[in-house]
């Protein structure tokens, strides 16, 4: 019984984590290049809406995903234009994008589909479906422990989920094993040095923010086309900020990002499942406390009580070329 509960919890963890992973990795690209991004939430929301709207109109999940990426990318470019070209305040720009997305998705959704800010329910062919890996059922019946794990956790996920988990080593590889990644990390620490080497700081940062936009779009598409069948008003529900928290919690490194996202995803799943259920030793935990836990943990981490999170040194500062 306990085993079944744990397995269910882990299964929901895997369900809710991918958008966090995509969004946190998105923030990772941008912030490691020195551009803070508070706007993960907004880009994800816009992506979710675009995916839901496009998929229901075109009857194609793939087109939904592509439109989500394009819309999120456009918002990322606004952020890039404001914070790189115009040297504006990056946090202000991110906040602006969150509001624009929050308002526009509702207004346009209501005007276009007239369902109270929702997009039409997506049919089976218009959304992502789960992939069953071979022998899942058989393994579950014949192999103890590992069989059910294989059936529930590894098999039967959306292919976007597999993509999310694959993005982690890929991001690590890009960041630490490619020339682009080296330069991206350098431009976040010391843009002047990169500039001296004859590499365009502007172009590098633009590319980093574009990676950010693409990943946020996928995160949004996951929400409205995989986790749910269609967009609902405000469906990101703070996930962009949780992803931001996870990014800080992971100290801006790809592999810890995965674990931070899984931890916060687990807390999310735990909070939903454990509502009103008394736990051994601690007694009944208020659901609100579990909900607030990711934020509390992040504040505690930021305060330096468990390790220390040091952001990229040039983060948040617009680069002005010396003349």
């Amino acid at each position, binding site marked *: 019984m306990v085993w079944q509960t744990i397995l269910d919890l882990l299964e929901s963890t895997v369900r809710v984590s991918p958008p966090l992973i995509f969004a946190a990795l998105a923030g990772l690209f941008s912030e490691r290049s020195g551009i803070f991004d508070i706007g993960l939430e907004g880009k994800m929301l816009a992506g979710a809406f675009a995916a839901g709207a496009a998929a229901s109109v075109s009857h194609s999940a793939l087109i939904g995903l592509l439109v989500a990426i394009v819309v999120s990318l456009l918002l990322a470019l606004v952020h890039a234009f404001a914070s790189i070209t115009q040297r504006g305040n990056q946090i202000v*720009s991110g906040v602006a994008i969150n*509001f624009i997305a929050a*308002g526009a998705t509702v207004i346009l959704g209501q005007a276009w589909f007239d369902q109270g800010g929702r997009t039409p329910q997506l049919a089976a062919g218009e959304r992502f479906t789960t992939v069953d890996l071979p022998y899942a059922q058989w393994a579950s019946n014949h192999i103890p422990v590992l069989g059910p794990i294989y059936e529930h956790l590894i098999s039967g996920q959306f292919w976007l989920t597999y993509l999310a988990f694959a993005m982690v080593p890929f991001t690590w590889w890009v960041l630490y094993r490619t020339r682009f990644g080296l330069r991206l990390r350098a431009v976040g620490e010391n843009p002047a040095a990169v500039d001296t080497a004859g590499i365009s700081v502007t172009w590098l940062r633009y590319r980093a923010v574009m990676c950010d936009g693409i990943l946020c779009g996928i995160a949004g598409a996951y929400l409205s086309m995989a986790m749910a069948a269609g967009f609902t008003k405000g469906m990101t529900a703070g996930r962009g900020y949780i992803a931001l928290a996870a990014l800080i919690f992971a100290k801006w490194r790809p592999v810890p990002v995965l674990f931070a996202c899984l931890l916060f995803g687990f807390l999310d799943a735990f909070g939903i499942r454990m509502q009103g259920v008394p736990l051994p030793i601690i007694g009944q935990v208020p659901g609100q406390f579990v909900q607030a836990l990711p934020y509390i943990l992040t504040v505690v981490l930021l305060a*330096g009580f468990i390790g220390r999170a040091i952001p990229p040194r040039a983060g948040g500062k617009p680069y002005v070329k010396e003349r």
Partner: protein
Amino acid sequence: MSTPYAKLPAWAEYVLLPFVNVVVAFLVAGLVVLLAGDSPLHAFQLMIEGAFGYGEGIGYTLYYATNFIFTGLAVAVAFHCSLFNIGGEGQAYVGGIGVAIAALWLDRFVPWWVTFPVAIALSAGFGALWAFIPGYLQAKRGSHVVITTIMFNFIASSLMVYLLVHVLKPVGAMAPQTRTFAEGGQLPTLGWLLKLFGLNPGIAPFNITFLLALVMCFLVWVLVWRTRFGYELRTLGFSRGAARYAGINEAKIIILTMMISGALAGMMALNNVMGDQFRLQLDFVNGAGFVGIAVALMGRSHPLGIIPAAILFGVLYQGGAEISFDMPEISRDMIVIIQGLVILFAGALENMFRPALASAFGRIGRSRRDVAAPAAGE
């Protein structure tokens, strides 16, 4: 282009440029209305009628503006110290506890004018407390105040749900809210003020908190521009290095600034809790804390700019509610877009039109050589 941006005359810097930015924001918002399939001009007309067309509308406009003056001042004070307090929403929410404590405790025994000062002190106190922790962590542990205040908004929201559901809700009641305050916990309206102008205030909850907001504008001006503390605060905001060199106690200023900012945000709760609903409800702040960011940016972080900016957003809130009667597609969420666009154009892109304006002024200046360039203001 040795300096990134040319200097503008003061009136262009503080009036013209913000005006241009806001106009562009509204033009883009008009595009969204167009995308939604409505006429932006008609929407604009409806909004102005809804906000100014009759006494009750004006009352509501000023009621909303009161909220935004408080949250705008809160963001502005922190801006002067180059701190970005996104936590106004949470601080106002937690400030509501202070108001509720004062009102629930005193409302049956004393008239409102005894409860009011206590409620002011407690709301400010709770708001300040909620901002103290991020301020302390920024000053002593170097954790970025933006991130911590965002996190504190979420923590506040969970905390308030918990308190309202488990602690403050009267026994046996269903809705997660406190009991309704008696007479002594209800602030008088300023309807008579509107009647002086021959307007009918109707049921608009425009109340005495508005006057408190104006007093706070003045006090913030005194604090920031006319006291030693304000000087230190602005020095620190302008250059951390200079402040350190001048022997200014950085940690103290940061913590105090955040607490003042939080106190101002916390006072916003008075307007809704004691002035309108007469009870503490879930989500009563309803985004007003975030509007403060737009208001502060638009008002250039100066009380004299914040008041008109707050009234503009009051117009948007009240007028936006009216629009939705005639144009069901345009709901209150339109304001969220406008708010975002104002933040984008008056905040992040504030310098976009500066080069064009500067070169225009440069041309005028060259043609009138004998006129000396006016000195910039503060």
